[in-house]
C-alpha cells in the first residue's frame, strides 16, 4: 500500500517534470508552423468551408458549430443552458425542454457530440450530445440547428460515458460515471461496495423521426464508466466501455482508485441483450425521468414523466457482458474504421493496449477466462490483445483514425498528438500541441469512412496563444493538416467553454437539407396569427393573449391598452416573413425572463407580468430593415381596479375581425395546391 503511494507520487512528479520541460523547449511558432500554413486555413470571402465541426461547449452546456479549415465560429446552438439571445428555455414553447426529475435544470455540462449514422457513415440528420451533471441526452435537428428533444437517463450520476452511437443509429449507449445507490436511498457512503451500482443504458433512436426512448439498462458492478464506442462492420452489435475505480474506492480516489495495475474494459453484446429483452429477462422497476420533445408543427415542447425502466442483469443473461483488463485509469476507448481494432488507453500507463475483435471473439468462444466478477467473465488480457503500443507518450487520452490505416492519439501530459500505424503498432510522427490536448477529431474519424484531411486537437490549456483576457483564457483548438506523411500545424482558434469532443462532417451532407424558413401555412401553433388580419388581443380571465405579427418593418398591433396590474400577458409573436435570414426579435420593457428571436414563419411566446401602471415600450431586437428602429409599440398598464377597456390597433385601426381568421382558415383548407 505504502510503496504504491510512493510510486504514484514519483510518477506524478515525473509527469510534472515532463510538462515543465516540454513547456520550455522548442515551443515557438517559428519552429512548428511552415510558410504556407495561413493559406491552407484561408477561406476567401464568398466561399464556404469544407467541413462543419460541432464542438460540445463543456460547462457552457451548449454546442458550437465551426467551419473547417477556417476555424470560424458559425453558430452557437443552445442545448442544456437557457439562452437569452433567442429566448430558448425562457419562451413558453421551450421552457419544458429543461424539465427533469430534479425539477427545472437550466444548465449542464455538455460533453460528447455524436452525429447520426447510416451504414457506419454520418448521414447529417441529427446531432446528439450528453448533459453530464443532470444525466440526459439531447437531440439537435440539423435542418434547423435547434434542440428538439431531451431525454433524461434515470438512476445514474455524471453521465460522462455518453451518448455513443451504433452504426445505423439503432442506439445511443451510455454508462454512469459515478455509481450510486439504486434506487436512491439514505445509506452510509462507506457502504459503497455493497450498495452502489452502475448502469449501462441503451437509448433507441427512431429511424424516421429520430425520437429517443430508453430501451433498457444493464446493471453493472459499482465502477466508474468513462467512455464507450460501438463496434462497426464485423464488430457491429457490440459495445466497448472503459471503466476505472474497479477498486470501488469512495474517498481520495486519486490514490485509492489507482491501486490495481489494470482496470477493466466492459464488452457488451447488445444484440444478445435485445434477445434477452424479448424473452422477458428484463425486470421493470419504478423510477422517474423526463422526456421532452418538440412538436414539429407547433414548435412547442411537450414534457412527459416516464415512471418505469427495464433492467437486464448480466447474471440472468449469460453471454451478454464480458470484461477484459485495460491499462490503469483508462479514458479513451476507440474502434478503428474496420471494426477490428479497439484502442484502450490508460491515463496512468505509458503503454496503450490495442485489442483485436477477432481474438476477443475467439477467447469468448473457447472460454479463455481468468475468473469472473458477479458472473461477468473476465477474458484473459493477452488472449484479446492485438498488441501493445509501448511508451508512445505520456497520458494517452483519445484516438481517431484517418481511414488510411493510421491512428492519432492525444497525449495530455506530454502535450502532443502522435500518429501511429494500427496494424504494425509503429509510431510514425508526433507534433506538439499548446497545451494538454483532450479529445481530437478528424472529419468522420469515428466512422467507417474517415475523411483524413484535417485533425483538430482540443486543448485544455492555452497559455501564450491569444491576447490575455484576465485570469482565464479561451481554450484553444488546433488544426493540423494530416493529408501528408507528417502532420502540419495550420491554425489555432479559441473555443467556447471547454469542448470535450467534436465531430466533423462534410458541409455537403448538411447544406442541402438546411431549412430556410418555416412555412407559415404549416405553422400549427395554436396561438399563431397567420396574417396581420389575425393580429388581436384577447382576455381569458386574468390572462391576456396578444396575437402579434412581425414583418419588415412593423409589429401589429403596436398599441395595446386595457392591461391591468394583476394580469399575466402572453405575447405570441408570429414572424410573417417567408424569406431566410430574416428573424424578428421581440423585447418588452420590464421583461424579467428574456427576449425572443422568432424565425421566419414561426410563433414564439413571451410571458410578461406588468410591474407598475404606466406605458411601456416594446420593439424588435434584430435589425431587419431601414425602418427597423420604427418597429416598435407601446403597452399601457392600468391599476387592477380600473375599467380601461381592452383596445389594440395599428395605425389607429382596431383589427377586430375575429371571424376573418376563421374565414381565412376555411379558405386555405379548400385551396387546391398547385
Amino acid at each position, binding site marked *: 500500500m505504502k510503496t504504491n503511494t510512493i510510486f504514484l507520487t514519483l510518477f506524478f512528479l515525473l509527469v510534472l517534470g515532463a510538462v515543465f520541460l516540454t513547456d520550455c523547449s522548442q515551443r515557438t511558432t517559428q519552429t512548428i508552423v511552415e510558410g504556407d500554413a495561413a493559406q491552407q486555413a484561408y477561406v476567401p470571402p464568398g466561399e464556404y468551408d469544407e467541413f462543419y465541426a460541432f464542438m460540445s461547449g463543456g460547462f457552457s452546456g451548449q454546442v458550437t458549430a465551426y467551419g473547417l479549415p477556417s476555424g470560424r465560429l458559425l453558430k452557437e446552438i443552445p442545448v442544456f443552458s437557457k439562452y437569452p439571445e433567442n429566448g430558448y428555455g425562457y419562451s413558453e414553447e421551450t421552457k419544458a425542454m429543461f424539465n427533469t426529475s430534479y425539477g427545472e435544470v437550466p444548465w449542464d455540462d455538455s460533453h460528447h457530440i455524436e452525429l447520426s449514422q447510416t451504414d457506419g457513415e454520418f448521414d447529417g440528420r441529427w446531432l446528439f450530445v450528453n448533459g453530464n451533471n443532470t444525466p440526459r441526452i439531447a437531440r439537435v435537428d440539423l435542418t434547423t440547428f435547434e434542440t428538439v428533444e431531451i431525454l433524461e437517463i434515470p438512476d445514474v450520476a455524471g453521465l460522462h460515458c455518453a451518448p455513443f452511437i451504433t452504426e445505423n443509429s439503432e442506439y445511443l449507449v451510455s454508462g454512469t460515471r459515478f455509481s450510486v445507490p439504486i434506487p436512491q436511498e439514505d445509506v452510509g457512503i462507506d457502504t459503497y461496495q455493497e450498495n452502489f451500482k452502475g448502469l449501462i443504458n441503451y437509448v433507441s433512436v427512431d429511424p424516421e423521426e429520430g425520437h429517443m426512448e430508453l430501451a433498457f439498462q444493464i446493471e453493472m458492478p459499482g465502477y466508474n464508466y468513462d467512455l464507450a464506442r460501438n463496434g462497426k462492420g464485423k464488430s457491429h452489435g457490440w459495445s466497448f466501455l472503459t471503466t476505472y475505480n474497479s477498486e470501488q474506492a469512495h474517498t481520495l480516489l486519486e490514490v485509492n482508485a489507482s491501486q490495481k495495475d489494470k482496470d477493466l474494459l466492459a464488452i457488451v453484446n447488445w444484440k444478445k441483450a435485445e434477445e434477452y429483452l424479448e424473452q422477458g429477462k428484463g425486470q421493470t422497476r419504478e423510477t422517474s425521468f423526463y422526456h421532452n420533445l418538440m412538436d414539429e408543427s407547433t414548435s412547442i415542447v411537450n414534457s412527459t414523466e416516464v415512471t418505469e425502466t427495464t433492467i437486464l442483469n448480466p447474471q440472468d443473461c449469460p453471454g451478454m457482458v464480458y470484461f477484459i483488463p485495460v491499462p490503469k485509469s483508462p479514458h479513451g476507448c476507440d474502434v478503428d474504421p474496420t471494426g477490428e481494432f479497439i484502442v484502450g488507453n490508460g491515463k496512468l500507463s505509458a503503454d496503450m493496449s490495442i485489442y483485436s475483435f477477432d481474438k476477443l471473439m475467439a477467447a469468448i468462444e473457447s472460454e479463455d477466462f481468468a475468473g469472473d466478477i458477479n458472473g461477468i467473465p473476465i477474458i484473459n488480457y493477452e488472449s484479446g490483445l492485438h498488441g501493445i503500443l509501448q511508451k508512445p507518450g505520456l497520458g494517452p487520452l483519445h484516438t481517431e483514425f484517418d481511414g488510411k490505416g493510421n491512428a492519432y492519439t492525444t497525449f495530455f501530459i506530454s502535450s502532443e498528438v502522435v500518429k501511429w500505424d494500427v496494424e504494425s503498432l509503429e509510431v510514425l510522427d508526433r507534433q506538439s500541441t499548446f497545451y494538454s490536448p483532450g479529445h481530437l477529431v478528424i472529419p468522420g474519424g469515428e466512422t467507417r469512412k474517415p475523411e483524413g484531411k484535417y485533425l483538430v486537437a482540443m486543448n485544455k490549456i492555452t497559455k501564450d496563444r491569444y491576447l490575455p483576457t484576465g485570469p482565464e483564457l479561451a481554450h484553444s483548438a488546433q488544426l493540423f493538416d494530416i493529408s501528408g506523411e507528417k502532420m502540419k500545424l495550420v491554425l489555432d482558434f479559441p473555443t467556447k467553454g471547454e469542448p470535450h469532443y467534436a465531430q466533423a462532417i462534410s458541409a455537403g451532407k448538411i447544406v442541402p437539407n438546411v431549412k430556410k*424558413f418555416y*412555412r*407559415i*401555412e404549416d405553422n400549427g401553433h395554436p396561438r399563431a396569427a*397567420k*396574417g*396581420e*388580419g*389575425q393580429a388581436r388581443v384577447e382576455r381569458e380571465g386574468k390572462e391576456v393573449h396578444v396575437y402579434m*405579427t412581425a*414583418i*419588415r*418593418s*412593423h409589429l*401589429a398591433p403596436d398599441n395595446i391598452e386595457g392591461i391591468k396590474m394583476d394580469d399575466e400577458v402572453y405575447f405570441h409573436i408570429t414572424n*410573417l*416573413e*417567408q*424569406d431566410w435570414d*430574416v428573424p424578428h426579435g421581440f423585447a418588452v420593457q420590464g421583461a424579467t425572463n428574456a427576449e425572443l428571436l422568432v424565425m421566419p414563419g414561426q410563433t414564439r411566446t413571451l410571458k410578461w407580468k406588468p410591474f407598475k401602471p404606466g406605458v411601456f415600450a416594446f420593439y424588435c431586437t434584430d435589425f431587419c*430593415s*431601414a*425602418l427597423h428602429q420604427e418597429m416598435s409599440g407601446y403597452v399601457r398598464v392600468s391599476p387592477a381596479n380600473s375599467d380601461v377597456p381592452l383596445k389594440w390597433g395599428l*395605425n389607429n385601426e382596431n383589427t377586430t375581425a375575429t371571424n*376573418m381568421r376563421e374565414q*381565412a382558415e376555411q*379558405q*386555405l383548407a*379548400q*385551396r*387546391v*395546391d*398547385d
Partner: protein
Amino acid sequence: MKQLLIALGGLSFVFLISCGGGGETASQSPAATAQEAEPPKADPKGIGEVKEVNLTDPLEESMITTGKAIYEMKCSACHKLTDQRVVGPGWAGVTNKRRPEWIMNMITNVDVMLAEDPQAQKLLEECLTRMPNQGVSIGDARALLEFMRKNDVETVGEKDQAANQI
C-alpha cells in the same frame, strides 16, 4: 391610370435628384453608378419565370378565394386593398398599371426584380423597405393576381388596363 404612372415616375425622379444632388459623395452612391451605366431596358413583363399569362373573363372564383387567403396571410401586413401606401404600395388599380407577368414575377422573383427591374427599383426607392420573398409559388401568385383583378373591379372599377402594355 396613366396619370398615376406619371405621378409615380415623377416621384421617383424627384427622389433621385434629391439623392444625387444632396450627397457630397455623389460619385460613390449606387444611384450615381447606375446612372453611369447603360440604363437597362425595362421589360413590362418584368424578370422571371412568368412569360405569358392568359387572363380570362369572367374571373375565376376559386382562384379569388385562394388569393384572398394568401393575401391575408402573407401580404396584408404591408399592402392595403385601397390606394393607400403603408409599407408597400396599395393594391387598388395595380392591374391597370402593371402587366400580369410583371406582377407575378415581382411576387415570385422579388430579389432579382429588386436588383434588376427598373420599375421594381423605383418602388424600392419610394418605400425604402425591400419587399420580402414570401415563398409564394407561381400557382399561388396566379391566384393573388386573380384576387387583385377582383379588387380592381371593386375599388377603381377597371381591371387589366395594363395587360397588353409594351
